[in-house]
C-alpha cells in the first residue's frame, strides 16, 4: 500500500510540475538567459527549425556573438553544499522517513546548474482533511492552485545527428530523430476533489488520464538551402528538406489509473480500491520499421540590419508501423498486462514544430524576438543587447508554455577573446505559483 500511495503522491507531484518543467527549457548560455531566452543568429533553435538558415552566410550572424560558450555551474556547487552526502541524503530517498518529495521534484524540475538567487516559495499552508465514516474532504489551501485544470505534460521532437554532404546547396544526409511526449490530465472527480475541495463520494472513481509516446529512428534526407535573391548583405534564402522516416522502435500508452471509493468510504477494510486500465502499443527494435514521409520548409530574409525567418518542421510526418503489438494493462491486486493483438498496423505522427524570428541590429544594439513551438505550445521571447565598449547589457521578456511572463536581464564583459556573462531570469520551474530567480554565468570565447 505504501508503495502505491507514494506512487499516487508522485503522480500528484507530476501533476503540478511537468508543465513548468517544459515551460522554458534548459539553457546553458548566460547571454540568452539575460535576454529572456531569446535566440539570436544561427545558434540554438533557428538552424534546427529553419532549413533556410543553413544558407545564410555566417558573417551576417556574428554581431559580437561568441564562438563557444562554457557555462559556469555555480548551482551545482550550491546544491552539493546543501546536500553534501547526496547518495545517503534521506530527503531524496522515498523509503526514508526524511524523504522530501517537494525538494526532490523541485530539484528535477529546476536542475541546479545555475545559482538560485531567489527560490520560488513552496506553498506552506496547512492541508486540512475532514474525515468521517462516509466522508472525505481535503482543503489544500493555496496549494490547490498548483493542481492543473488542463492537460499538462512535456514533449517534443529532437534531431540527434545529421551527418551528410552538400553540393551547391543540395545536401544528402541521414537524420537521427526522436519524438517523445507525455501528457497527463486529472479526471473531473479528482480535479474537483483536489482543487475545489469537493467532498469525495462513495462508489466513485478518481482517476488520472495519462498518455505517452516515445519513438525514434533515422531519416534519409535530401534538402536544399540557398539564396534565391539578393546578395550577401540583402538576400532572400529558402530552404526545404524531404525526409523518409525509418522508425526503429516506438511505444505508445494510454492509461487511466486511480482508485474507486468503497460503498461506504471508510466503512470497510478497503476504502479505496486502485484500478488502472489502458492499452499499450509498441514495436520493438528489430521488428518491421515504421515508414513515413515528411518535410521541412523555411525562409529567411536578410536586409542590412533586419533579419526575418520562418521555419516549419516535420510537415505531414506520419509513420506507419506494420508490426505492432498491443497489450492491455489492468489492475488485479497489482498491475498486469496481457497481449491484446499482435502484428497489427498502427500510425504515429510527429508534431509539427515551427519557429519565427526577427532581429534588428543597429550599431552596437541588437534587438530580437522569436516564437518557437517545439510541439507542445508556443514560447515567445523578446529581448536585446546593448554593447558599450567592453561591457554589454541585456534584457528580455518571455512568455512560456504556461503563458506566464518571465523576465531576464544581465550583462557581460569582454576582454579580448574572452568574455564573462551573467544573466538573471525569472522562472516558474518549481512547485510554486510564484517565480524564482536564477543567476546564470558563463564564459565566452570569441
Amino acid at each position, binding site marked *: 500500500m505504501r508503495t502505491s500511495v*507514494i506512487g499516487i503522491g508522485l503522480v500528484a507531484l507530476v501533476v503540478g510540475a511537468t508543465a513548468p518543467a517544459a515551460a522554458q527549457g534548459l539553457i546553458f548560455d548566460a547571454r540568452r538567459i539575460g535576454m529572456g531566452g531569446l535566440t539570436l543568429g544561427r545558434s540554438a533553435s533557428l538552424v534546427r527549425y529553419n532549413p533556410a538558415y543553413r544558407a545564410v552566410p555566417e558573417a551576417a550572424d556574428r554581431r559580437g556573438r561568441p564562438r563557444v560558450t562554457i557555462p559556469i555551474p555555480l548551482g551545482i556547487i550550491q546544491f552539493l553544499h546543501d546536500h553534501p552526502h547526496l547518495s545517503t541524503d534521506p530527503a531524496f530517498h522515498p523509503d526514508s522517513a526524511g524523504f522530501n518529495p*517537494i525538494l526532490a521534484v523541485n530539484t528535477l524540475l529546476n536542475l541546479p546548474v545555475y545559482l538560485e538567487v531567489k527560490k520560488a516559495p*513552496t506553498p506552506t*499552508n496547512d492541508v*486540512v*482533511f475532514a474525515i468521517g*465514516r*462516509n466522508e*472525505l474532504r481535503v482543503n489544500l489551501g493555496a496549494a490547490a492552485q498548483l493542481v492543473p485544470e488542463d492537460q499538462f505534460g512535456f514533449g517534443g521532437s529532437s534531431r540527434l545527428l545529421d551527418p551528410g554532404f552538400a553540393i551547391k546547396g543540395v545536401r544528402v544526409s541521414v537524420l537521427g530523430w526522436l519524438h517523445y511526449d507525455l501528457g497527463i490530465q486529472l479526471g473531473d472527480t479528482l480535479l474537483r476533489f*483536489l482543487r475545489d475541495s469537493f467532498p469525495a463520494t462513495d462508489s466513485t472513481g478518481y482517476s488520472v488520464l495519462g498518455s505517452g509516446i516515445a519513438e525514434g529512428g533515422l531519416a534519409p534526407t535530401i534538402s536544399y538551402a540557398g539564396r534565391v535573391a539578393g546578395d550577401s548583405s540583402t538576400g532572400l534564402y529558402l530552404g526545404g528538406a524531404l525526409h523518409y522516416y525509418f522508425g526503429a522502435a516506438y511505444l505508445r500508452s494510454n492509461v487511466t489509473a486511480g482508485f474507486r471509493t468503497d460503498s461506504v468510504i471508510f466503512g470497510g477494510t478497503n476504502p479505496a480500491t486502485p484500478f488502472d486500465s489502458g492499452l499499450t502499443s509498441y514495436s520493438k527494435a528489430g521488428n518491421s520499421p515504421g515508414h513515413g514521409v515528411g518535410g521541412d520548409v523555411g525562409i529567411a530574409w536578410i536586409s542590412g540590419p533586419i533579419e526575418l525567418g520562418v521555419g516549419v518542421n516535420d510537415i505531414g510526418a506520419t509513420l506507419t508501423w506494420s508490426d505492432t503489438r498491443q497489450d492491455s494493462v489492468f489492475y488485479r491486486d497489482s498491475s498486469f498486462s496481457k497481449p491484446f493483438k499482435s502484428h497489427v498496423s498502427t500510425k504515429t505522427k510527429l508534431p509539427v514544430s515551427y519557429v519565427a524570428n526577427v532581429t534588428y541590429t543597429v550599431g552596437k544594439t541588437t534587438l530580437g524576438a522569436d516564437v518557437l513551438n517545439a510541439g507542445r505550445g508556443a514560447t515567445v521571447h523578446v529581448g536585446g543587447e546593448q554593447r558599450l565598449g567592453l561591457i554589454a547589457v541585456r534584457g528580455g521578456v518571455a512568455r512560456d508554455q504556461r503563458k506566464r511572463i518571465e523576465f531576464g536581464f544581465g550583462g557581460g564583459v569582454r576582454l579580448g577573446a574572452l568574455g564573462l556573462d551573467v544573466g538573471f531570469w525569472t522562472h516558474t520551474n518549481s512547485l510554486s505559483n510564484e517565480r524564482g530567480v536564477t543567476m546564470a554565468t558563463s564564459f565566452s570565447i570569441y
Partner: protein
Amino acid sequence: MRAKWLVMTLLAGAVVGCGRGHAVLNVDLLSFLRPSGDDSIAYNVPGGVTADTTISQQFTLPGGLANSVVDSVLIRGAAELANRSGGGTVTLKIYFAKTQSALFSGAAYDSASSGHVTGLQTVPFVLPDSVSLNDTLFNTRSLWLGLRASITTDPPLLTPMVGTVRLTQLQAHIVVSDKLF
C-alpha cells in the same frame, strides 16, 4: 476503522502542496462508532453501588503517522444522558491507548460528569476540550479508543438506575508535521 485510507489521503495531500505546513485531520470519530451502536452505553445498575461499563474499538492509523511528528491532538466531545429510572451520577471518560490492555489503565483523555440525576431525566453534558501537545500516542499505526461510563447509583439496592449515555459529538483534531514519508 481500517484507516489505510489515511495513508493515501495524508501523503497525497502532503505531496500536493503542504510544503512545510501541517496536515490537519479533523476526524469525526463518532461517525465510526454510530453504525455499530458503540456510540451508546446502556446501563442498568442496582442502587447503592458503583459500576463501570466500557466499550472499545480499534482504529488503524496511517503508517505515515509513524514517521511524523504529531504536534497536537484535540479531542472534543459531547454526550447526552437519558435516565429512565433510579438516581445517581454518570461520569463519561474517553481513553486512547496503543494496546487494548492498556486502554483503561492510563489517564483519561477527556471526561465529564452528568451531575446527579434522578427519575426520568435527560441531561446533556459537554466534555471539555482536551489538548495533548507533542503527542506520542497518536504516533503509531494502531490505536484503541475506549469509552467508560462510571455509574454511581443512589440506594436502595432494589431501585436500579436505568438509562443510556449516548455520545452526540466526538471529534479528533490532529495536527501533524509533514514528515509523512
